[in-house]
């Protein structure tokens, strides 16, 4: 008898092997558009954190935060779902559900993501130091902005391999010709 974990795994494999809305990711240009949309969705988390930081402590522009997060999720969720199907779960599935080509592609995407994330962390460090050093002991990051920054960093780290993989993906061969 299969446990719920096994059932969940099989369900994910089946969904990610399906051809749901193939027109959205049929060409490299469309897949790159989806990758750009996912990146845009994540970038709004950073904008949201920046707005919270600039507005300082207190309630801040709550409406702006809500609008930004809503737009972000509206763009992010469909783009990420379609990218997962387009890449056939290369990033999402466990290794035992992938073949050697897919595992190789995942390793390349992960390696490239590591370099990109190193760049993101360096930029973040430079920004924090550039803002903090002139203010010396007066410097602080508002609690709300700090939380949003951590969420933005987490989301970027979480979705970047999928964006990279979707961006790099070559056009798949025609489904069958036998």
């Amino acid at each position, binding site marked *: 008898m299969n446990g719920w974990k096994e059932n969940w795994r099989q369900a994910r494999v089946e969904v990610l092997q399906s051809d749901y809305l193939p027109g959205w990711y049929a060409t490299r240009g469309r897949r790159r558009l989806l990758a750009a949309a996912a990146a845009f969705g994540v970038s709004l988390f950073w904008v949201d954190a920046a707005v919270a930081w600039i507005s300082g402590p207190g309630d801040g522009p709550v409406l702006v935060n809500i609008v930004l997060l809503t737009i972000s999720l509206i763009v992010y969720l469909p783009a990420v779902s379609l990218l997962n199907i387009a890449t*056939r779960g290369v990033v999402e599935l466990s290794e035992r559900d*992938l*073949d*050697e*080509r*897919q595992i190789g592609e995942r390793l390349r995407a992960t390696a490239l993501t590591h370099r990109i994330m190193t760049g993101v962390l360096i930029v973040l460090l430079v920004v924090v130091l550039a803002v903090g050093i002139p203010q010396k002991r007066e410097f602080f990051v508002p609690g709300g902005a700090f939380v949003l920054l951590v969420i933005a960093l987490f989301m970027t780290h979480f979705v970047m391999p999928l964006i990279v993989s979707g961006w790099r993906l*070559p056009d*798949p*061969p*025609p*489904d*069958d*010709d*036998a």
Partner: protein
Amino acid sequence: MSAEDVYNRISVLRAERGISRKELAAALGVHYQTIGYLERGEYSPSLFLALRIAEHFEVPLEVVFSLRPFPRLGSG
């Protein structure tokens, strides 16, 4: 020819045996798109997969894979 090009006759053997990419992929335990990438020369298999492909078609490895382009049929 790049230094790492590996040529193969998977599509010829598959057509000759009348099996689809999905059937071959299922027999080898790989994704069917991987067969397509192999046939297009966009992916070079591991030695293990290459041996399994040759074993599946019941031919020696060098019948399926080569470091040089295979001669066209009828070219002598």
